[in-house]
């Protein structure tokens, strides 16, 4: 179904502008014009609107944005795991030289985990409580690879557990015998079983204490280096982003509003929403000062005209209420979706 929708959609010039970004090596991941709608009783909610970006092997991208802005939807869409009433309306996801959107269901099932792996939000609570960890790992390998021998599957699992710094004895344990951080590392181990080229981790540490967070992130870092994968880290913790990623992408109401290097994002954010987000970060010098962004996130069912952020934006101009801003690449190579930068592009 999807490939039909896709084949008659021309690649827009915007996409080529974006992929032309001089980001060194050939990208291992290209997401082009991805669009997802949830058909709810109350109407159509466009949860993902024309999202494009690229990522190279070994690169780490942080995906941030308000709750409900579409981050998990983006991950699910990339995995082709959007369920009804949601639908992928358009777009392509290309890993290496495989266009995932063109694969049939069976091929896609195999591509998950072997080309692109997803560690879902709340993953550690989704481990099966009555199955040993090892059996769950073996199942994961079997369902994605036919004909691998038992001993080689065993080796694979042992290696994965070792890469996440877990004892081999975990293989024979049940989920309830593990702490939160250990469960989370099991999920990462499952994610890397088949050496995927792209790993998407959706809030992998939001339930963990800072010490365990550090261990989990150090684990992802080490594993990524080992298999030279690209990593997308979805999350809210800007501290974690500052410490871990190379690039930061900011989403707002289903659109990517800015993509910058981590240094640019923290020292000189461009999009007014990104600026507000950065200045809302707590530190130890201004106790009790809460700098949230006033106003509510827009309803996806009734998006404001023009730029979806304009009702909350302190820099809003007339054009912002009427015209939807284009995704633009600034001279510096940064991507910003905002009328303030129309001249700089």
């Amino acid at each position, binding site marked *: 179904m999807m490939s039909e929708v896709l084949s008659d959609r021309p690649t827009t010039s915007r996409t080529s502008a974006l992929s032309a970004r001089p980001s060194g090596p050939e990208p291992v991941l290209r997401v082009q014009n991805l669009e997802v709608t949830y058909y709810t009783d109350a109407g159509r909610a466009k949860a993902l609107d024309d999202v494009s970006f690229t990522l190279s092997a070994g690169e780490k991208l942080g995906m941030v944005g308000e709750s409900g802005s579409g981050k998990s939807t983006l991950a699910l869409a990339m995995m082709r795991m959007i369920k009804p009433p949601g639908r992928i309306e358009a777009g392509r996801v290309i890993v290496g030289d495989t266009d995932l959107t063109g694969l049939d269901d069976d091929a896609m099932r195999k591509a998950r985990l072997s080309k692109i792996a997803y560690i879902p939000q709340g993953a550690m609570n989704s481990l099966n409580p009555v199955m040993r960890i090892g059996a769950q790992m073996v199942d994961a390998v079997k369902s994605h690879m036919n004909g691998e021998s038992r001993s080689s599957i065993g080796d694979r699992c042992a290696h994965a557990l070792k890469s996440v710094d877990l004892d081999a004895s975990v293989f024979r344990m049940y989920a309830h015998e593990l702490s939160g951080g250990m469960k989370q590392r099991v999920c990462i181990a499952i994610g890397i079983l088949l050496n995927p080229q792209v790993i998407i981790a959706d809030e992998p540490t939001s339930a*963990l204490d800072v*010490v365990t967070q550090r261990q989990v992130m150090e684990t992802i870092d080490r594993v990524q280096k080992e298999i030279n994968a690209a990593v997308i880290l979805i999350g809210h913790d800007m501290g974690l982003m500052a410490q871990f990623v190379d690039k930061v992408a900011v989403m707002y109401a289903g659109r990517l509003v800015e993509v910058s290097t981590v240094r640019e994002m923290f020292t000189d954010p461009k999009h007014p929403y990104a600026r507000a987000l950065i200045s809302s970060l707590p530190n130890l010098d201004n106790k009790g*000062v809460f700098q949230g*962004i006033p106003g509510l996130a827009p309803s996806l069912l009734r998006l404001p005209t023009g730029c979806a952020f304009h009702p909350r934006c302190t820099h809003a101009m007339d054009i912002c209420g009427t015209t939807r801003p284009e995704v633009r690449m600034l001279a510096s190579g940064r991507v910003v979706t905002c009328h303030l930068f129309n001249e700089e592009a």
Partner: protein
Amino acid sequence: MANLLELKNVSKVYSRGLINTKATIALQDISLTLRENEPTILTVAGESGSGKTTLAMLLLGFTTPTTGQIIYRGKNITTLHGKQRMAFRREVQAVFQDPFAVFNPFYTVDHLLTVPIRRFKLAKSRADARNRMDEALTAVGLRPEDVLGRFPHQLSGGQRQRINVARALLLKPRLLIADEPVSMVDASLRANILETLRNLQRDHGVSIIYITHDLTTAYHISKSIIVLYRGAVMEAGDIDTVIKSPRHPYTQLLVDSIPWPNLEKRWGVQPIKARDSGASTEGCRFRSRCPMAMEICKTPPPLFRIDAHHTASCYLYAEQPQVAPDHLSELLPA
């Protein structure tokens, strides 16, 4: 001054397995007093498995202590009946940790919110009920018309978490136990929700126990903090002092591991010693990971008073006077 809720020398031990019983001491000898007329915000921090949720469950009366007592307005909570029990259920509210687990997937958001309104007869009319729901949802940054009528699986993680907070706000409790209430929302919303909680304490006299691993937000809203490690209090006191000059090696590791949103302040200088699950529970529980461990640490360290609002359970401060466990609350500023 009347006490709202008191924990008196409470311990909780979970045993598992019938034959080869292995006991987990989830909480060890904790005493805590929350006063009626001194609304405060107390943070309980500590790593995964340190007993934070266990503490919340005990305070809510959802699990019973293995030893010790929990007293609500002068009465042991296990003996509450009728009206008193109802009052306790309403006055002590919780925001539970996992927004993915707490909701019955077959009920809509409306249902989740109207049940408590009806149960505690909070509204005079249907319109009044709707107003209250709208108010609570708006306070956590949700649009009522967007989320009412939806099922939990149709909401994002952070949206679910906020429904949880809204439900607790609706009930206007005296004590709110919030177990990681904002772990899944962005910094800006986090600021808004925490400000709502702070105002609840300041303007409406609600005490809040904020359970979190996020020491930065804890610093911003709380007056005091208790740091737990494997069920035991490691350090406690005024939050500014504890976070800016932690004394216990465990708290030092925690503070060192805060990921700062600052590129110049790199994460974690101290290496992390793996937690050894088989480590003995004799003596200081942090001993096997502690860079400063000494011979004496094999005997359980008492709390030492560092100053009027600061105490640590560590022999590095053995010169200082001891604090009896049931006097812990006296070192926590209200």
